[in-house]
């Protein structure tokens, strides 16, 4: 009989071992701790935005009815929208909704906030993804060329160019690009947006200028960062010395040995950048008339549409918190020398 139970218990034992390994894994414990710490941050962010919107003069009822509305009309609409309830009650109701998966309805259009997010977020994500793609696709080869010959002609030129690129405001770049490519050369559309469903090529054509406007600053930032990291790897690390001593060609050491290690650092910075990037999409979407989340946010602030603002701020904050967490976790997985779990100071 024992022979027949053995195959049964073996997977069980294996599973138990897998489970205890997982539970005891410092990375997992680190992730759980960070997720728990993220809860008060999200709480604070949403509460703060509630306070800010609440302290603004005027509310949605007033914005909806306009200046001619009588006080009794405003009073009635406020009661209808639930704006007459005490401040903390409204926040509690909203919070309760989030936990049960309802982000509420827009005060001005009546649309559910969830559906607004579902229709606008992909647009912004596509823009951000293109910006990242543009910047990373160029940053890696340029940084490699720089690190190949530090202080060479290519290195100096690209360092000068990247310093200039870092100093250009994204909206200035957007206007210059529109002037050159849309007004003068007339090869790309100046404003507007075509959903990918209505023609992928048109969709991409409309995205090029906004994505480059956001991406150029990132490109310059990543190039400088990656170059510095590559140089550090090439100068100080034992594995580089080993590879060289084996007779691996310098270019191959750079692309196959140093780049692999430097990319880890870059990935974490990319994740950390996401928050700042979301802020700048607001202005770029405004200039190019792209119906993304930033555009929606500006409109919602104008209308004092608190549920929409809260929903967008909540999603932004979740993205920022998760991106920061992903950066830390990636770093700890990719570089096992880094030990988390206990503050070092």
């Amino acid at each position: 009989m024992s022979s027949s139970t053995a195959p049964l218990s073996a997977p069980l034992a294996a599973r138990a071992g897998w489970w205890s390994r997982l539970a005891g894994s410092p990375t997992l414990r680190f992730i759980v701790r960070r997720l728990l710490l993220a809860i008060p941050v999200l709480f604070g962010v949403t509460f703060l935005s509630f306070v800010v919107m609440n302290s603004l003069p005027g509310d949605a009822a007033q914005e909806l009815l306009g200046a001619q509305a009588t006080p009794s009309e405003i009073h009635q609409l406020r009661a209808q929208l639930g704006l007459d309830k005490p401040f903390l009650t409204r926040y509690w109701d909203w919070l309760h909704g989030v936990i049960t998966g309802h982000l509420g309805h827009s005060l001005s259009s009546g649309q559910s906030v969830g559906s607004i997010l579902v229709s606008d977020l992909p647009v912004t994500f596509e823009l951000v993804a293109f910006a990242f793609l543009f910047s990373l696709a160029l940053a890696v080869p340029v940084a490699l060329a720089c690190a190949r010959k530090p202080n060479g002609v290519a290195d100096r030129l690209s360092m000068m160019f990247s310093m200039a690129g870092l100093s250009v405001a994204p909206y200035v770049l957007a206007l210059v690009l529109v002037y050159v490519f849309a007004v003068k050369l007339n090869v790309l559309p100046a404003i507007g947006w075509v959903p990918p469903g209505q023609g992928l090529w048109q969709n991409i054509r409309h995205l090029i200028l906004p994505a480059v406007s956001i991406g150029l600053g990132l490109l310059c930032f990543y190039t400088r960062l990656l170059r510095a990291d590559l140089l550090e790897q090439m100068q100080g690390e034992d594995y580089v010395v080993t590879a060289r001593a084996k007779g691996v060609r310098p270019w191959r050491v750079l692309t196959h040995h140093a780049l692999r290690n430097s990319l880890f650092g870059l990935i974490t910075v990319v994740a950390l950048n996401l928050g700042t990037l979301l802020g700048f999409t607001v202005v770029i979407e405004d200039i190019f008339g792209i119906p993304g989340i930033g555009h929606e946010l500006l409109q919602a602030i104008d209308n004092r549409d608190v549920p929409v603002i809260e929903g967008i701020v909540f999603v932004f904050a979740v993205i920022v918190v998760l991106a920061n967490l992903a950066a830390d976790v990636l770093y700890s997985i990719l570089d096992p020398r880094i030990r988390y779990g206990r503050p070092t100071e």
Partner: protein
Amino acid sequence: MADLPSDLVVAGVAPAADEAAAAKVEGRWRSSLGVIVPAVMVAFIFGVCFIWPLIGPVPSPTGGTILDSNLPAFSPGHFLGTDAVGNDEWSRLLYGGRSSLEIALAVQAIGIVVGGLIGAIAGYMGGWRDSTIMRLLDVLIAFPGLVLAVAIAQGLGPSKLNTIWALCFFSVPATARIARAATLRVREQTFMVAARLSGTSFPRMLVGHIAPNILPQLLTYALLGMGIIMILEGALSFVGLGVPPPAPSWGNMIAQGQSTLSAQPRFVFLPSAALFITVVSFNLLGEGLRSRWSGQ
């Protein structure tokens, strides 16, 4: 640059002595050039924006007559021409730069004082006070800053002062983080321990011991941040806030020029060029100073 301790120099990697000395002299010369050139540029920009209107014959940046509108560059009396309502463009650039620089300076000054204080207290005290302060800053950093700025500027009404308040939500948390990290580095050094053992009071520690050690770093980062704040000021103008027209700032000049981009691109390009040159100067200065600090 401090000399490397001899035990750190790996045999065979260290260059010959005279070669090293020559490289050091050249490096020092070059690194000081990397600070002096942008510093002169920054001083020049400040001089042009703040002193020229006092001594040179500059017409008022607002209240021009519509009869003089859209004059081309090099018109008599209007060196860079006039804008759509007849204001002198050169004068608007000077006064616009003034207000952009004033805003950025005020924001960074508040950032250093408030953020530096918060960061130094968090770093020095440690423990639960540190974690509480850092969590609160996390909230501010996770909060989409532009939303807060837009909301504040809308609630208080667009004005120069309110723009400064709104932009402080960027500078204070960022400076506080840097101040905390810098404070953690100096906290356990011998002179700090000695000061603590001799019973120095906390405010005195802060002013006499922590501040002088973290200020150089904070100032360097503040210079690098000047450019970002000037760019953000313009971003606020784009969403209809920031410095309210007709008073000029580089940001609102660019935002206003957007509507006549195809017919009169100079209304975008002139303030954009001024903004770009200024931000480059600040970035080069900050970068030069930072590489000097990190080299030590």
